[in-house]
């Protein structure tokens, strides 16, 4: 074989081997590290899996936030105005987390249907709402007015 062509062959082989390794890494990285969003209505209907990482989001129900007096545990509910999901979280909540505002929690559902959250995200400015929450609210026909949608 012509040396340049031989070199190209090795090059192609190297790229193939390396990219396969990379694709393997990607698949490994994806397994268990991606999670699906469920609106509260679907969680209430039992469509969300128990014991797998998922995200749930909606508006934080007025008057639902309960803080523990001796630890960082917080309990609250989110709703898409069709159903409510109870969430328990131990840690420091983001600054913009509040009753009547949009929030997304990531974690696992337990047997009692409570989401044990490892992370809570709130919308980060006055005019913005997480797209998942906006869509969930739109699906239930309760999207608040005033620039809340994207």
């Amino acid at each position: 074989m012509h040396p340049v062509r031989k070199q190209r062959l090795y090059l192609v082989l190297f790229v193939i081997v390396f990219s396969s390794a990379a694709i393997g890494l990607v698949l490994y990285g994806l397994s268990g590290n991606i999670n699906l969003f469920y609106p509260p209505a679907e969680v209430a209907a039992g469509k969300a899996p128990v014991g797998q990482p998922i995200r749930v989001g909606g508006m934080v129900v007025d008057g639902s936030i309960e803080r523990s007096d001796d630890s960082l545990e917080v309990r609250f509910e989110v709703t898409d105005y069709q159903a409510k999901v109870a969430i328990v979280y131990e840690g420091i909540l983001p600054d913009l987390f509040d009753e009547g505002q949009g929030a997304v929690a990531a974690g696992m559902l337990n047997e009692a249907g409570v989401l044990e959250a490892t992370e809570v995200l709130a919308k980060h400015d006055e005019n913005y709402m997480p797209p998942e929450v906006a869509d969930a609210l739109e699906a239930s026909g309760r999207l608040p007015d005033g620039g809340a949608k994207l």
Partner: protein
Amino acid sequence: MIAEFGHFALIIALCLSVLLSVIPLWGAWRGNVVAMSLAPSLAIGLFVFAGISFACLATVFLQDDFSVAVVAANSNSLLPHIYKFSAVWGNHEGSLLLWILILCVWMAAVALFSSQLPLLMLSRVLAVMGIVAVGFISFSLFTSNPFARLLPGTPADGQDLNPLLQDPGLIIHPPLLYMGYVGFSVAFAFAIAALLGGRLDASWARWSRPWTNVAWAFLTLGIMLGSWWAYYELGWGGWWFWDPVENASFMPWLAGTALVHSLAATEKRGLFKSWTVLLAIFAFSLSLLGTFLVRSGVLTSVHAFATDPARGLFILVFLAFVVGGSLTLYALRAPAVSSRVSFSWLSRESLLLVNNVVFLVSTLTVLFGTLFPLLMDALGQGKYSVGPPYFNAVFVPLMAVLIPFMGIGPVSRWKGDSAARWRAELLLPAIAAVICGVTVPLLHGGEYNVWVALAVVLASWLLFGLARDVWYRVRGASTAARGFRRLTPSYLGMVVAHLGFAAAVVGVVATSQYNIEHDLKMQPGDTEVIAGYSFTFTEVAQVRGPNFVADEARFDVYENGRLLTRLAPQKRRYLASGQVMTEAAIDDGLWRDLFVAMGEPIGNEGAWAIRLHYKPMVRWMWLGAIMMALGGFATVADKRYRQRKVARNEVSEGVSGAAA
């Protein structure tokens, strides 16, 4: 009045950019020298009018003209002046105008500093940048006019700048980031110009290289500042989130890193020509993709401004035009510029190839992780999110694969080298690196950490390899000073940048492995000890800033019973918007940061949720990034980029240069 003036200036800039994208290209096609030589003047005119437009927007912000919609939405009369100024780019419309201004700065720089460039090339480069400018200026004028008025119904005061953006880091982070992002448009324009002309030789690489290195260095600084800002401003001590918008700036950086290295091979050896051109197209396309991701609001992110779908569509169409057009051109013309130079497997070329493959694969995996949620959503598979574990699982091994080769790179020779020579040169550094890796984690005490050991082995492998190489190059001279003077700026730039990479690796791994984070309930009088530092919560006080009121928690920090420092994190409530924000307090140091932030009040007895973090060597990664950027800037000082007459055949010089 000033707003209308700015609007008018922007319209003139649009007209000039249309002229710039048409006349010089026509001139290059017809061989009309007059038309071609209009390009630099048009580029400078464009810069002047974009500058006037930007100055007008800054003026209306500083004058609190709340009849202008963006000022009313993003500023406030109580806002300190410096933040009124940075508020210009703290919103979608203004940041786009900054994008345009910086594009014009690059264009003017190319027009002014390229006297050694043939007119044909220069006119094509500027015209391609002109086309990009047409796209962005019309985007600004037609979908997001920063000068739109609120008439009637001018509010008495503005709604205030998002408190997160009221920070010194945010004054310089966007401009630096955009300098990098947009700077790749120069590399892109050179690539397209080369394809148009069908001429791609070492002198092309020599022209394109300094611009690419500078853009890359700016992007490095911009990303580093963004990470630093997130660390102290978002209030929970993270420094990299794999957030889609961070990825949007990181992908061009990864592609740009590959480009910087493949340009080296193209300049020195005339190799990888068409590949280099493709990388230049990729790097800029990824910059545009980043802009699309941020501006269209398709992804959830801390950076997403309130957006509207028309904007997303506009950028998507523009992106399709640029990527589609340049790839079509590439497909048609790449065979004309491809190279037939052979090299041995043990050579610097191979090692640069490894660099390119690793960085390209990293870019693609980050791209995949960023777009995966969009893809699944578009296919109706539900709303997924891809978290940091994915990115860490993929990215970290790729970088670990890279470093062993990276250590050999600088000592290797072009064209052909031998394993025996590498062994002779690098055996000592390899042994020293392993010894360092095994012993250094012992200094930290506590449980022996294998990952830190591995990071130290890799980083010191780079360090000792470079040290040995510098020593070989310097030792022949009569005095050390004379020897150092022999080293070229571009070689020193490479050394500094690689050392910066080593420092960043150590910083990232040490912080991730050794950091201690305690989130707990504390009330005044409580003491908590982490990593030998004892934090005593003394009191909570009410304080008032220029445009906020705050609860301030005061901590005394003791080390070995001796008062080390006092830290006072705040929980602020901004008066105009009512928004609450956490201001962390940090005691910084080269070897460790102490970080305190407040959560929310707990119960009725004055207790608060408190975040206490101990972050060892977290500064190293930012220092490393600064070193990488300095390295990038240093290469421009090289004499060979300033020679007016460019030799035709660089190959022989490249070989002797590497052997020296």
